[in-house]
C-alpha cells in the first residue's frame, strides 16, 4: 500500500523460522523451476514478519538462487505485499462496484473519523492501518471489510462500532 518504490532495511539479518523453512522446502519440490517460489516465499515472509524488508528480499533471492531484482519486481507488482510495517490491525475496505453501490463510503468515512487516519496511512500508536482495496469477491454481502485477512460482511456503522470496540 501507498509508497511501493522503496525497500526499508531493518539492519538485522533475515531468515525463515523453522515452520516457514519446512514449508519452503515442501513447496519447492512442487515446482519444476525454482523461480516459481518467489510468490510463495514472499507470502511466507509476510506471514512471519507482517511485511517484507530489504533483507528479506535478499534472503529470498539467495534461497531461490535468483536475482533480488526479480523478487523485488514481484513484491512491488502484487499489491498485497507490504513493503513496510502495517498497523496491528490492517483494515481493508472494498471500494469496487458492488460495495460502492451499497455505500462503502460510509464505512471509509467512519473509520477515517474514528481512527483519525486517511486510507493509506497508519495510526501513530501503530494499532491501525487503513486501506481501500479493489474487489474482494464478497459482492453478495456488500459492503465488506477485511481485517488482518478476516472477512466481515454486510458491514454498517453499527457493526463497525462494535468491531472497533472489540479491537480496542
Amino acid at each position: 500500500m501507498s509508497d511501493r518504490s522503496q525497500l526499508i532495511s531493518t539492519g538485522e539479518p533475515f531468515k525463515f523460522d523453522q515452520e516457514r523453512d519446512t514449508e519452503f522446502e515442501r513447496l519447492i519440490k512442487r515446482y519444476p523451476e525454482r523461480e516459481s517460489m518467489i510468490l510463495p516465499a514472499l507470502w511466507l515472509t509476510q506471514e512471519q514478519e507482517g511485511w517484507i524488508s530489504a533483507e528479506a528480499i535478499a534472503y529470498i533471492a539467495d534461497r531461490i538462487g535468483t536475482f533480488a531484482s526479480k523478487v523485488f519486481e514481484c513484491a512491488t507488482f502484487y499489491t498485497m505485499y507490504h513493503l513496510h510495517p502495517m498497523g496491528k490491525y490492517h483494515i481493508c475496505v472494498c471500494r469496487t462496484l458492488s460495495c460502492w453501490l451499497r455505500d462503502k463510503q460510509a464505512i471509509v468515512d467512519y473509520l477515517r473519523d474514528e481512527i483519525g487516519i486517511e486510507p493509506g496511512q497508519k495510526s501513530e500508536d501503530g494499532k491501525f492501518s487503513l486501506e481501500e482495496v479493489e474487489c474482494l469477491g464478497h459482492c453478495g454481502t456488500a459492503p465488506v471489510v477485511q481485517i488482518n485477512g478476516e472477512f466481515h460482511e454486510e458491514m454498517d456503522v453499527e457493526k463497525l462500532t462494535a468491531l472497533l470496540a472489540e479491537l480496542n
Partner: protein
Amino acid sequence: MEVKILSAKFDIEDGHKLEIAKQHGAYATIDKLFSMKPEEVIEEVRNSGLRGRGGAGFPAGVKWGFLPKGTGKPVYLAVNSDESEPATFKDRYILVKDPHMMIEGIIICSYAIGSHDTYIYIRGEYTSQVKALQAAIDEAYEAGYLGDKVAGHDFKLEVTVHRGAGAYVCGEETGLLESIEGKKGQPRAKPPFPAVAGLYGCPTIINNVQSIASLPFILEKGAEAYKVYGTEKSSGTHLFGISGHVEKPGMYELPLGLPLLEVVEKVAGGVWKGRKLKGVIPGGSSTPVLTPEEAKTVTLDYESMAEHKTMFGSGGIVVLDETVDMVKLVENLIYFYHHESCGQCTPCREGLGWMLKIIKKVVRGEGEISDIDLLSELCDNIEMKTVCVLSAACTMPVRSYLTKFRHEFDAYVSEGASTAEANQE
C-alpha cells in the same frame, strides 16, 4: 427456479469434509473414470456442451482437444480460482463448501488430458478459503485420491495451491501462468496458445473452478442428463452471483436460459426499497450494461446476451436502482481497470489513466461536451490494441454507459459544478 447440481452439498453440515462428502457421493465417479479411455471422457464432456465458466464461455471439451499429441513434454492443468472480476463471487462457495467436488473434477480432467500436475491459482485475498482448500487437498492425499496412485489406479497426480497476491490481471490465462512461474502477471501474446505452449513452455489447460467442478456430475449422470438443464447451446447450470440493489443478494444456482428480470424478481427479491430499476450489469463489471427495456427480453444464456450486444460473462449480475449516478459509476469502473492495468501495453497503461482524468474532471463539474466525446474516442483507440482484453474489459462497459445514459454525462457538463454539488448531497 433454483436447482442443486453444483450446490447439492452446500447445505450439508461439514459437507466440505471428506468423510461427509463421500457419504453424499464424492469420488463416486473415479472407478468409472478409469474404466473409460481418456478420449471417451473428452467426448462425454464435449457432448455435454459444458462451456468455460470463467467468463469467455469457450466449450471445455473443445479446449482440451487443442492439446498437441506426442510432444514428449508434461501436460499441466491450471485451475483458475482468481475470481477477480468485480461482482463475481461464485467459485469461493465451491472452494469452501464442496472442495472435494472440485478435486474430483481435477482428477477427471487430468486423466482426460493426460496431466499429472495441477496448479490451483487462488487469489491472495481469499485467506480463509485457501486454508479450507488446502485442508481438503491434504485429506484427499491422506485418503489416496491424490498422489502416486489415484484411488489405487496406475495414475499419478500432484495438486499444488499457488496463491496470488492482489492482481486482477492474473485471472487472464497467461497472466496466471506468468504468476505461477514467479513473474509479474503480465499476459503473453497469443499465439502460441497455452494448450501448445503454456506453463514452463509446456502444453497447458486452464479451466475455471466451476467448469472443473461440473465434471463429476457429467461423468456420473452422462452428457444427456446435464443437457436437461439450460438451453440447446448454453447447457447446464451456473452459479449466479446477484449483488447491488436487490432485496436478497447472494449466490444462486440456476439453469441457463431463464429470463433475467424474472430471476431478479423471484430469486433475488426484486429491486430493493421498492425503487425502480435503472439498469442491469449481466455478467461482471466488464460486461456492457442493459437498460430496463433491454433487460425485459434478455435471458441468462450466452446467445441471448450476445443478441443484446452484451456478454454472459461470469454470471455476476449487478442490479442498479433509480438512484445510481451513472457518471460516478463509470468513474468507479475506470478507476478499477486503471489500477489493475499491468502496465505492459501503452494504450491500456496510459489510455485508462487518461480516461480516469477525464471522468474525474466531468464529475468535478469542470467537463466539456468534447470531453465526453473524447472518452468515447479513447475507448475506440484503446480497445483491441493491447496484448490482453483487460483494456476492453474497461472500454466495452464504459462505451455502453456513454451510449445508453449519455444524457447523464451531458447534464454534468451543462449544469457544471451545480450537478456535482447536488450529487454530493
